[in-house]
């Protein structure tokens, strides 16, 4: 019970402090924080359409945030969800336009499956195996793989095999059988939200109620003890990265089939990075991931409304996200001020340091 209260109170305090610092910034630059924040809130939740769009923005964040939470639980830090998202997007779109004459449910299912496998292998094979075999640090390898994935997508779209006829670097549109239905008319909210919520429940179940989850958590808490208990530590590190990548890939697939319907040439979706913040704020709890994802999605959708209504640049919301990370990372801040020695574990539960 105490743990549950802490799990909710700590993030709320972090959000509260960050929002207040944001307000201070607005006052210093001559804006009215109450007016701006109410515009932000209305923009995010004020109407059925706004709320639906906020939820739609939360979908990829929930899915990739879940993936990052799984790796944190296993003591690993997957910083490359962005690239895994791109791998999933590419695979889903490719299945979406190239596989014909499949019934709708099967077509969507196939696209999901392939994108999860592709993105899972992207995270599992190179970062997973190099971590397990030679101890290459996954923060660096997942980041490097992320950039390789993004350049691969440029290659595919800029005159490459996935480019649609014409001069614009974009893929063909997916077939109607591969589209995810829209839940609320005139918004971007698709059945993807149901996929995301179901994934959260499944990840919760796997992490806390299955042997696999128990083993992953044991590896995360103490790899040496896990090894003595007969757990194959290397295998579970690879598995954690695979699951993580698969979830980020699913995020890309849901976004492609539900919202974009084709792949555009761009440098970043931004979801992969925000997903890290989501997992941190949620303290890696799958249900908390849903709430944290909705919070950051609301900052993104509401931020635009705030800029239009009150003139406060929407980039303020990124500053708020950054401050939240500092506060969550420094969760031992309170104990420093109380002159007690801080606890020695940290969020990524990475005790070995940067053994690259």
């Amino acid at each position, binding site marked *: 019970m105490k743990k549950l209260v802490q799990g909710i109170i700590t993030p709320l305090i972090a959000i509260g402090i960050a929002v207040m610092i944001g307000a201070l910034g607005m006052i210093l630059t001559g804006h009215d924080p109450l007016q701006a924040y109410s515009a932000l809130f209305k923009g995010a939740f004020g109407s059925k359409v706004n709320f639906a769009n906020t939820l739609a923005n939360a979908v990829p964040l929930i899915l990739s945030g879940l993936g990052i939470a799984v790796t944190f639980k296993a003591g690993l830090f997957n910083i490359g969800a962005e690239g895994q998202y791109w791998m999933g997007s590419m695979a889903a779109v490719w299945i979406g336009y190239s596989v014909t004459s499949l019934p709708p449910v099967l077509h969507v299912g196939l696209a999901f499956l392939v994108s999860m496998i592709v993105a899972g292998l992207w995270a599992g094979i190179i970062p997973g195996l190099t971590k397990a075999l030679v101890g290459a640090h996954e923060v660096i390898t997942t980041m490097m793989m992320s950039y390789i994935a993004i350049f691969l997508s440029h290659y595919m779209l800029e005159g490459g095999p996935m480019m649609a006829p014409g001069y614009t670097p974009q893929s063909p549109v997916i077939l109607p059988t591969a589209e995810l239905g829209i839940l609320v008319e005139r918004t971007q909210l698709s059945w993807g939200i149901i996929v995301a919520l179901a994934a959260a429940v499944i990840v919760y179940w796997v992490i806390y109620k299955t042997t696999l989850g128990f083993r992953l958590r044991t590896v995360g808490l103490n790899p040496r003890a896990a090894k003595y208990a007969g757990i194959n530590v290397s295998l579970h590190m690879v598995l954690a990265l695979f699951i993580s990548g698969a979830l980020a890939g699913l995020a890309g697939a849901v976004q492609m089939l539900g919202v974009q319907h084709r792949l555009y040439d761009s440098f970043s979706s931004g979801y992969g990075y925000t997903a890290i913040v989501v997992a941190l704020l949620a303290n890696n709890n799958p249900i908390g991931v849903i709430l944290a994802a909705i919070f950051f999605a609301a900052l993104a959708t509401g931020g635009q409304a705030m800029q239009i209504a009150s003139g406060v640049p929407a980039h303020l919301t990124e500053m708020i996200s950054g401050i939240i990370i500092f506060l969550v990372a420094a969760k031992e801040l309170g104990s420093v001020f109380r002159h007690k020695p801080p606890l020695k574990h940290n969020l*990524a539960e990475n005790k070995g340091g940067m053994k690259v």
Partner: protein
Amino acid sequence: MIIEELAKPELWAATIAMATPIALPALGGTFSERSGVVNIAMEGIMLIGAFFGVLFSYLSNNPWIGLLGALVMGSLISLLFAWFTVNIGADQVIVGMGINIFAAGLTAFLLNTIFGYGGTPRETPALPNISLPVIKDIPFIGPIIGEQNSVVYMMLILVIVSHYFLFHTNLGLRIRAVGENPQAADTAGINVWRMRYLGVILGGMLSSLGGVYLSLGLLNSFEVNMSSGRGYIALAAMIFGKWTPFGSLGAALLFGFAMALSMVLQGTGISANIIQMLPYALTILALTGLVGRSTAPAADGVPYRPDGK
């Protein structure tokens, strides 16, 4: 086709220009990590340097004051990073992420607040190019290093100075000692926290200078997220260069060459995007030991408590 391009000095001049904003933050990361603090915040600190360089240059109408202001702001954000990671002992990768997101937001917010939505003023003075009297007349070499931006020459000097400082001075030895074995260094009377602050702040100033090169060296303006991943490439260059100044420069030149080559090859059959993947793939290979194994300082990433608690 490629051979022809290789014989042109323009390609090599571009290589050095492209390598500079990678080499500087890679050098910065080297100082930070040699002292035992994992630094992925170079990307964000570059943005801070790039923005405040333009701001102070515009306000003072003097690009050198802009450079100085950028170094001060880069040090300040590094102080924040050092306080969270050294004093509080917070996870260094997570705080680094936080700095990157915060800095991207802060610089974009200030850009819009101070200069509106139309970009920074056109009359902002930029840092000058320097042409070296005798060297610029040497055939082939002259066009490559005879005339470059002043920051490029600063970078080359800083690499040499950093190497001397880290490996041939007492202070450099102390920085490396706290990154390898803080307990032993502490026993020998070295203030571990002070050395780590020094490493992080020097790292911040060098990253900031890399940002200044982008905004005041190559251009005279700031754009949102203009570091566009160079801080992360610098991280790769630092690792590929085995946490040494000359290694970082070498890796930065290799990565800069890949970028310059990919621009030259645009419109030919060879995909620029595939060439641009190479630095990242090489870094993974370096980590696995397939091309000369890279090993981090032993205590890199481990917070240190002087009281042993």
